């Protein structure tokens, strides 16, 4: 049984469909990379999985249980996933440590001492030990994004959703965030990520999915997608990305 199964998912906005029948299965420990132009539906798909959006048709299953069921409790579902956004969204009025321990303490009922110990372990693992008492506005963008990832990680999710986590960072800071994701993969974390970093996508993904106008047009191993894409649209997209890189 797949960890996550997306079955014929549709999503409409203002009379147009932004997701048009997406099918996708994600196995445990698999890293799935969604690529595609802006507006192709990558982020919307992640938001549907996290139940931030309600699907307009189809179903999504986590560990074999339908999470798009009307009777499903969205909070319970989200407890089992971590999502990280492009804009970090750290709580500015809390220290790094409080940002990380908030959900473990208030949602999962972990005691303060235990939660802080776990948080400090995570901070140490990702080289941020000295920032525990700092407030988010004292951190660089890369550090903030690493804290955001740690915050999502602190609830020990089954699945991590990473939505363009490096898009708001300047190139020098991208590397450190990508390092964190690499580390997560080595730890066996199941992840779905959207990214514009094609090189990184190629390196880290087990499966690459190309979305085009709300349709999952093509999927395959990084090798296959990046060297020998079957669809003309995929080729076009990759070429435009390469051209942009060359300039």
């Amino acid at each position, binding site marked *: 049984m797949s960890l996550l199964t997306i079955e014929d998912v549709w999503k409409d906005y203002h009379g147009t469909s932004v997701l048009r029948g997406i099918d996708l299965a994600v196995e445990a420990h698999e890293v799935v990379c969604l690529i595609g132009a802006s507006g192709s539906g990558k982020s919307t798909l992640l938001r549907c999985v996290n139940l931030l959006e309600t699907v307009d048709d189809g179903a999504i299953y986590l560990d074999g249980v339908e999470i*798009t069921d*009307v009777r499903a409790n969205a909070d319970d579902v989200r407890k089992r996933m971590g999502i990280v956004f492009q804009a970090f969204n750290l709580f500015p009025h809390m220290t790094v440590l409080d940002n990380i321990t908030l959900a473990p303490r208030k949602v999962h009922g972990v005691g303060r001492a235990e939660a802080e110990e776990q948080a400090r372990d995570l901070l140490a693992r990702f080289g941020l030990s000295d920032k525990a008492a700092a407030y988010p506005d004292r951190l660089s963008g890369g550090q903030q994004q690493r804290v955001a990832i740690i915050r999502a990680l602190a609830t020990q999710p089954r699945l991590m959703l990473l939505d363009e986590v490096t898009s708001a960072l300047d190139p020098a800071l991208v590397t450190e965030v990508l390092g964190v994701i690499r580390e997560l993969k080595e730890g066996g974390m199941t992840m779905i990520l959207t990214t514009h970093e094609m090189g990184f996508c190629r390196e880290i993904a087990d499966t690459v999915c190309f979305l085009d106008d709300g349709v999952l047009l093509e999927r395959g191993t990084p090798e296959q997608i990046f060297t020998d894409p079957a669809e003309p649209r995929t080729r076009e997209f990759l070429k435009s990305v390469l051209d942009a890189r060359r300039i």
Partner: protein
Amino acid sequence: MSEVTRVRSERQLRRERLRRTRAVRSGTIATVSTIVFLGAAAVAVTGSPGWPRVQDSFFNPEAFARAWPDVLDGFWTNVQIFLIAEPLILLLGLLVALTRNLRAPVFFPLRALAVAYTDVFRGVPTLLVILLVGFGVPALNLQGAPKDEVTLGVIALTLAYGAYVAEVFRAGIDSVHPSQRAAARSLGLSHGKTMRYVVLPQAWRRVVPPLLNDFVSLQKDTALVSTIGVIEALRQAQIYAASKFNYTPYLAAALLFVLLTIPMARLTDYLAARSQRRRGQ
């Protein structure tokens, strides 16, 4: 992107049916719980030992009918005071807020005056301002100073509320991000033009809900001018209540004020929700 013309799957139709039944169930629960609550409240009030007395002196239909025309007539005065005072307050508030935002040293006396004004008039109870203006200004015997109570009432309310509204405006102006001001100044716009074309239009949207809240409060406070001899709704009700020893006319006045403030309160809610939606995206 394609138009949505697809046929919904059996699963989606089932999901939508389930959503509808749940909506109906929520509605039913809300209705039943409201009826039970109101019923319990009604039983508690009407079952109290003093209820017959209260019913006679506060809910007396004859007294209500007798007082209604005059109270309604007086209420028109409240509405007029409100309608005249409101634009004056907006103007005064905006001027004071803008004055407090002037940075040049030459304007120091004006700025100090504006600060002193907001400090003093936010500190003094509105009723006291009305009494001081209502009885103090005519006593000066100044050439051209108004003697009419309604005018004096409007002046007093404008002074009292202008201080609050100035602070609301100032908070709104300060809430516009400094980078907006920097962007406008870097284009060569002067302080005044920056305010007028860039800052105020953005500030305005944010202050509308709190401003309306102040105006709901102003609508009620027009009743305070009864203390300086204006025969408005509250005074009319008082006259009837005193002559017949029946308080129902007060209820009539209260009803009129509520009828005036409820639409305003709903409008405030609506605007607040709308700006929330806009920012929430």
